[in-house]
């Protein structure tokens, strides 16, 4: 392609003058494809914002990016007292950025804050539903009382529960905290411009963690929501790091000198949610034949490879094969338009209908491709592209007849991180099938792995047999960064920038 020459030349010509400067200053700039409006982890509805906040506010445990194992962070040790009580030993001698000491009170305060509905903590249910309350045992020991046995609890604690300083938070209030958060993390906020940039400097008082000490003096996060701009900026050396880029961006950046691209795993998946329960009003999705037809009509292989990346695989159950409990050995629907048309002919709407497929950010093209495929069935499918928060609101508000749902499971290696949200009668459940609900609900309360697997099999089999949703493909995370950055590719796809440094 002639035009691509420009891109290469463009990238090549801008020698990394800026980058050299960055390396000398021991700083990196992250071109974030999202806008961070607040640094309060309990006010933002964006996972990406939490990825940034993670540099300043710590969780109790940290997931080793290379192995995916939970490692000590603010908690140095933990044990199960019974399946619903987690006992945690806290690190001593840690101080918050403002100098106040970290104790068990801060953990209890944080949990209480989340649990107090007056505070409207985001993800209160999704992320913290499993926690009932926190109890202080002594200054450096706490117990988390859970609602029900939750085997994945420790893993989840590496992704959620950002500890806030009780005294400071109570003094300044949530809003001021969101603008100038005070945590124990390896970086502290220096300057925050909502929606535009966050600049963080090293917390020199940071303890020596299991992975070592932070190497970078400074991390800057710039919001660059436009893919092309992001590509241009990293090629020009103004930005050092891009996360979660699209396969198309990846293809373009592969030709750029001084930029390294890697593709990492992810426990994310995408599935096409269909309103089989009729929550958004009576609709053709309630007809099993229509769902079968759709399942056969979508060329998932092509979509996965083209729009997600070569390493993305088609899935048959709405879960990531890496997650515990993810049963992929279920009824499979091949791409077969003829068969799809047969189902369509048998359905209540043989002549087709109108359908809006809701999607946000990079799921947009997926939804558009699905819409394109569905037109073969005379379904007048249209992409209903929305802003992230709006999409989330409506998906969980039961308003979407059909939506492409990309679910990251918050990086948790257990189907429990997603199944309860979508298939146990909760806000995200458009299936409302008693068989599915019962088996998944039960599985979440059992500790025995074999028992759980059996129950999950029942549930996923039922999901597949009824074609309640159309599982699409596993997620892939593409990264691009300036050559010379020492960065550990995370198995879960979530970058931990404070661990990086320049070679």
């Amino acid at each position: 392609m002639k035009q691509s020459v420009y891109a290469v030349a463009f990238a090549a010509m801008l020698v990394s003058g800026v980058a050299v400067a960055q390396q000398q200053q021991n700083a990196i700039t992250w071109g974030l494809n999202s806008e961070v409006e607040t640094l309060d982890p309990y006010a933002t509805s964006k996972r990406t914002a939490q990825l940034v906040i993670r540099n300043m506010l710590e969780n109790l445990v940290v997931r080793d990016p290379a192995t995916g194992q939970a490692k000590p962070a603010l908690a140095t040790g933990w044990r199960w007292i019974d399946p619903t009580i987690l006992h945690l030993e806290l690190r001593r001698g840690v101080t918050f950025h403002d100098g106040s000491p970290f104790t068990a009170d801060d953990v209890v305060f944080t949990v209480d804050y989340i649990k107090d509905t007056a505070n409207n903590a985001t993800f209160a249910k999704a992320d913290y539903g499993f926690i009932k309350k926190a109890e202080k045992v002594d200054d450096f020991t706490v117990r988390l009382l859970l609602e029900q046995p939750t085997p994945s609890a420790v893993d989840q604690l590496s992704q959620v529960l950002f500890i806030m300083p009780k005294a400071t938070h109570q003094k300044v209030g949530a809003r001021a905290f969101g603008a100038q958060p005070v945590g124990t993390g390896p970086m502290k906020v220096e300057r925050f411009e909502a929606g535009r940039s966050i600049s963080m400097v090293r917390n020199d008082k940071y303890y020596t963690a299991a992975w070592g000490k932070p190497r970078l003096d400074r991390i800057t996060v710039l919001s660059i929501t436009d893919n092309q701009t992001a590509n241009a900026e990293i090629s020009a050396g103004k930005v050092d790091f891009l996360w979660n880029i699209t396969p198309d961006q990846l293809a373009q950046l592969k030709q750029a000198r001084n930029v390294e691209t890697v593709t990492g795993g992810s426990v994310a998946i995408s599935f096409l949610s269909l309103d089989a329960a009729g929550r958004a009003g009576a609709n053709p999705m309630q007809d099993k034949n229509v769902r079968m037809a759709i399942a056969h009509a979508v060329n998932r292989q092509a979509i996965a490879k083209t729009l997600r990346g070569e390493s993305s695989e088609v899935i048959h159950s709405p879960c990531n094969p890496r997650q515990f409990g993810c049963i992929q050995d279920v009824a499979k629907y091949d791409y077969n338009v003829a068969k799809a048309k047969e189902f369509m002919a048998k359905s209540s709407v043989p002549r087709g209908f109108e359908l809006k497929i809701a999607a946000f950010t990079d799921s947009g093209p997926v939804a558009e491709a699905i819409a394109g495929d569905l037109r073969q069935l005379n379904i007048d499918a249209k992409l209903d592209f929305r802003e992230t928060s709006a999409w989330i609101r409506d998906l969980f508000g039961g308003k979407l007849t059909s939506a492409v749902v990309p679910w990251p499971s918050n990086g948790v290696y257990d189907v429990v991180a997603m199944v309860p949200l979508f298939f146990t009668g909760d806000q995200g459940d458009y299936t409302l099938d008693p068989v599915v609900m019962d088996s998944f609900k039960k599985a979440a309360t059992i500790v025995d792995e074999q028992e759980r697997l059996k129950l999950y099999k029942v549930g996923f089999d039922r999901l597949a047999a009824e074609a309640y949703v159309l599982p699409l493909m596993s997620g892939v995370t593409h990264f691009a960064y300036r050559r010379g950055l020492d960065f550990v590719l995370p198995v879960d796809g979530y970058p931990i920038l404070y661990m990086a440094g320049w070679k």
Partner: protein
Amino acid sequence: MTETQVTATDSIGVRPVGLWRRALRHPGFVVGGVLLLFFVLVALGADLLAPHDPYAQSLVRRLRPPVWSANGSWTFILGTDPFGRDYLSRLMHGARIALAVAFASALLAGAIGATLGVLAGYFRGRVDQVISLLISTRLALPALLVALAVLQVAGSGLWIVVLVLGSTLWDRFAVVMRTAVMQVSSLDYVMAARAAGASHGRIMTREVAPNVLGHFLVVFSYEAGQAVLAAAALSFLGLGIQAPQPSWGLMMAEGRSWLLVNPWLIANAGVALMLLVLAMNLVGDGLRDVLTPGERF
């Protein structure tokens, strides 16, 4: 009016050269008219003329370059888009959407604006004050923002776009019609009709309306162009007409991710859009010069 005008010549009223003949002598009008006719024909005949189904997608043949490019082929004259759909066919079907939005929005806006303008210009006084306030309010409202907000809430779709654009683009109709009607209704023939006992309805329809029709047509052609631009801007931002419908604004939005490597994705839809709006503006200019000489719009 001065009582002592001596400007009126009493030479034989020269029969004005027919409007059509004057229009056809107006180069802008002719160029614009031919272009517009071309787009209308393409839009009407898109089903027959388009080489492919504009929705037929194939991810394997995505992003084929146009024919003039090194790897181009005559199968896909303007190449294919990121979903492997034929660009030319989408462009042609897109003309249909653009024209539908343009005409329907301008018609709705015209109905609202002309009604308000005629009422204000004819009745004056209180009616005029209230309507003028309404116009000022409308002008002060950032139309695009309001349109975006309404679309965000009301959802997507061609007719919603028409509704939103129609109810935001009426101001120029109202302003122009108000002034025109004020001018016309202060003329002696309106006075004569009143003196002859004609009702307001008869005066407005028989005496005033035929004389401000030209103004309406001129504004209509400008606002149709504005509607195309506004709809494209909405589509570009992802609101209004939704993929995979071949709206030009959407095509440009989609092409934006390929600006560096496939600039033609944006360029071609943009050129089509520009030509259509240009055609409408030229026709507007022509109509202005022919129907309402001496007026500024």
